[in-house]
């Protein structure tokens, strides 16, 4: 073992990269952002590989549960997840970085209805409606509206006549825009980003109410990731707003940049999960 390292050392010196560089870093991607921008992901992957001088892989999953499973099975090193999965996984993951949107590391839940619906002013007006949830592990698209319903004194299980999951915020917006659902709760960041990319779609919906602010869906690191890789990845993300290529990417992601962040940002979500979360 000693010998192999010793023998490999000159090669590593020449290459100027660490031994672990042979293994690609695997980053889980979820519908926490507009994850159907495949071209953007290719550019971002390329950017990270150049920046970190090692291979990077994006692993796309539509459901938070799958990404959580992959993290727990150590098949992912990092992941961009929603607040609720982050809170649920507890010590299994470490907070890596928090995106900054419109100057703050926060986002909200938007309660939306079809643009034609002009009489709805709160979620209580949607009693007995057809409601679209994004994901059962989504904060803004599931936990937050259920918490509101409960706070108003209703049972989230029977409040709506029918609910269904679209497995993405974008599709939840589409469900409302097409009239399939009479309401949905979506990620403010996704809705705002989509309003820039596809304003025709968001114009068919109306934001009835904005929730309180939550910590922005964080990048997390698997507990098993080495400190070196953890640092390297955090640095790569935090450095993005310091060079033109990174700035261009951030502009496309509709983000200002990344900060290290603090787990305190997610305390409110942890409380909500205790009250209205899945058992």
């Amino acid at each position, binding site marked *: 073992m000693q010998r192999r390292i010793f023998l490999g050392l000159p090669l590593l010196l020449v290459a100027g990269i660490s031994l672990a560089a042979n293994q690609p870093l695997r980053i889980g991607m979820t519908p926490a952002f507009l994850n159907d921008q495949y071209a953007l992901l290719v550019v971002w992957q390329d950017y990270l590989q150049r920046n970190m001088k090692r291979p990077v892989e994006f692993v796309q999953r539509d459901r938070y549960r799958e990404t959580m499973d992959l993290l727990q099975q150590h098949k992912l090193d990092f992941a961009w997840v929603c607040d609720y999965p982050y809170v649920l996984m507890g010590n299994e993951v470490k907070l890596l970085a928090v995106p900054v949107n419109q100057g703050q590391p926060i986002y909200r839940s938007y309660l939306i209805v079809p643009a034609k619906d002009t009489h709805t002013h709160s979620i209580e007006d949607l009693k007995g409606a057809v409601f*679209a949830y994004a994901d059962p592990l989504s904060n803004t698209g599931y936990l937050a509206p259920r918490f509101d319903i409960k706070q108003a004194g209703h049972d989230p299980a029977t409040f709506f006549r*029918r609910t*269904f*999951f*679209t497995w993405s915020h974008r599709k939840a917006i589409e*469900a409302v825009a*097409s009239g*399939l659902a009479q309401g949905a709760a979506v990620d403010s960041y996704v809705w705002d980003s989509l309003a820039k990319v596809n304003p025709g779609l968001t114009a068919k919906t109306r934001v009835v109410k904005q929730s309180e602010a939550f910590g922005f869906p964080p990048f997390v690191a698997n507990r098993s990731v080495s400190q070196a890789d953890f640092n390297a990845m955090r640095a790569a993300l935090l450095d993005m707003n310091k060079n033109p290529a990174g700035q261009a990417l951030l502009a496309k992601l509709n983000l200002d940049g990344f900060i290290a962040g603090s787990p305190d940002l997610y305390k409110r979500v942890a409380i909500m999960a205790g009250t209205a979360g899945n058992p």
Partner: protein
Amino acid sequence: MLFNLSLRYKLPLWGGLLIVLTALALSLSFMGQAYDDLKQDVLRSSEDLGLTMSRALFPLMLHDDVWRAFEMVSLPFQDSTRTNATHAESLIVIDTKRQVYVSSRPESYPVLSDLAALGREFAYVDKALGALQTNETRALEPPGSSRLFIAIPIITDGVTLGTLLVVHDTSTFWFRFLRLIVRALWITLIVLSILLPINWYWGQRMTHPLSLLARHMGTIHHHLPEALETGIYEYGDEVGQLYKAFDEMVAQLKEKALLEKHMIQSERMAAVGRFTASIAHEINNPLGGMFNAISTLKRHITLDPVAQMTVSHLDRGLQQIRDTVAALLVEAKLKSRDLIRQDFDDVRLLVTSAAHKKRIEFAWSVSIAESLPLPSTLVRQILINLLLNAIQAASDGGQVSLLATMDENNLLIRVENDGKTLTAEQMDTLFEPFSRFSEQGNGLGLWIIYQIVLQLKGEIKAGTEDGLTHFLVLLPLTGQKAEND
């Protein structure tokens, strides 16, 4: 009025009408067929789509995945620039409670709405689905609606989760059908534009010979119709037979007319003969008395020179009267010897000097028996008169021919000259006395010939052939002897 039209118009008009009716009937049956085909086509493709989709919808409904089900039923309508293959208006998934589970147009057919509440047509479909409950694909056409529903059960392993409704707006396939109709109309017009002129031409061709015949027939009251030109219609069908019959009729009519003309002519000639003979007799009787008186006067009375001259004048005048009357009264009863071949040579000698004067060339052909039982004097008279006439009529330096032949019963004499031909008017009065055709002669030559021929029970004809005028005399050899003896 229409029925009195000429066949030239009637036949093509009827034909045209038949063609138009046929074209219309064919077009209509084609359209009917096309409509059925189109409908079947739409139904089949809808069924195919529906069957595929209902199979895929089953697990989605089983897992209550409304969103995926929505994505699936919306799939055929995503490309809005292109009309989808089935031309369906929408797809609606109905659950077992007959509520909308999901639809491709959630705004019109919202989730969880009762099917019956969506409108009159849907109420009909709701009722029909309730009554059916069979697990078969059904096409439902609500009465008085422009919509067509194809209901496909969403079923797997005998478990039914709902029904997929493929909704068609029939106006869209009316539009497609309209395009077919327009194409069919164009084809019909093209076919008509080819067939109608052909029909017109054919009708004209068929009726032209008939109308020509009708025109010819129409003139029959006024005069004998002309025989139709040959080659107008040469086929052996009914029209051809009509043409043939018409030609035969015209020929017979002409023959009859000719016969009548001959009869009238010979009757007239007989009347003239009788009249002439009676006058001649009436003149002859006093004439004999006058000759006797003059003879008595000359014999018994001595006359002074003036009286002598006067008597002589009288005598000569009376003699001229007697000659003329004698010529009118052709005397056949004259005793005469039989005709011999030598008589022809004698006649030739007699007319030679007259022929020489006009430098006429004779063509002479006599092939008869040595002796014939005909009165020589009369036959010689005929020959001389005919030849002198011919010489007189012939042109200077012209030609006159005589042909005498015989068969068992007849002597045939034919005299020809190359002079001016006879007009039809001349032909009519040719043999009448004093009908002069030339300045010379007394106009009795042909009359005498005619009388002689008549007495000998023969025939005489005149005619024109190839610019030659000919006289043909036929004298029967039998039945003459008794009279000659």
